[in-house]
């Protein structure tokens, strides 16, 4: 179940999990359940991104450019 506004989406998570997270963030810099969950999700997404960037080498990029030139998309 998701609710969307222009800048935020509300996502439902199981209540027992929410309680555990609330316990976990006590005494940390996180001011709310949402800010903690946002932080964790951003970490996961950015680590995925870093892994993919590592896998995409300069050599790969040159191959992409060669293909784009052959297809007329790059000078």
């Amino acid at each position, binding site marked *: 179940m998701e609710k969307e506004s222009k800048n935020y989406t509300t996502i439902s998570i199981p209540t027992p999990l929410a309680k555990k997270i609330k316990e976990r963030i006590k005494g940390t810099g996180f001011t709310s359940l949402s800010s903690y969950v946002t932080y964790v999700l951003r970490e996961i997404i950015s680590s*995925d991104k870093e892994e*993919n960037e590592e*896998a*995409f080498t300069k050599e*790969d990029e040159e191959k992409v*450019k060669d293909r784009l030139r052959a*297809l*007329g998309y*790059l000078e």
Partner: protein
Amino acid sequence: MIPMKLDENVNYIVSGQERSGTSMLMQILHGGSIPTAFDDLRPADDHNIKGYYELEGGKIINKLINNEFPISKYKGYFIKITAYGLKFLPPGEYKIIYSERNIEETLDSIEKMIRKKDLNREETKSNIIKLNNLIKNEIKVRTDIHVLFVNYNNILERPKDNIKKILNFLNLPEDNLQKMIDTVDLKIYHNTRTNA
């Protein structure tokens, strides 16, 4: 046909790997009177019978790399920028429709277009997959980009469902839905693999 209007504060982009249905998407949007910007520097040919729907003959990636492409001029219009070009999008507000296609068909289509058998086909395949993953991840984490992923093969199978999804993504009514569906000419897009 009712002319559609897009948000003039937003840049709209059709993207995806080359030969993965980006021209067909532009054609669908254009067919629905949704604002699109393109020129005729690269005319229609055997590989894209209905045209490429590109700006600057498709060569805007160089300008994006050099920060010379006047992207703000195209706010409120759809333009086509293939996947690699998305790496160089300046900060802004974007809505992107990103097309993917059965990779073997993409490779077949590339070979046909360059009129040469790719002797390193597996290597090219891996390179396209890597680039696709990289770009998809980059656009997913950018907060100034909203993206709708579509699949070329699925559009051919279920044009109505997919075009409705596109209109919903753009917050547009369905007045021109049938016109948009009519642009999907299955006779042209016959070069598909059954295991797509």
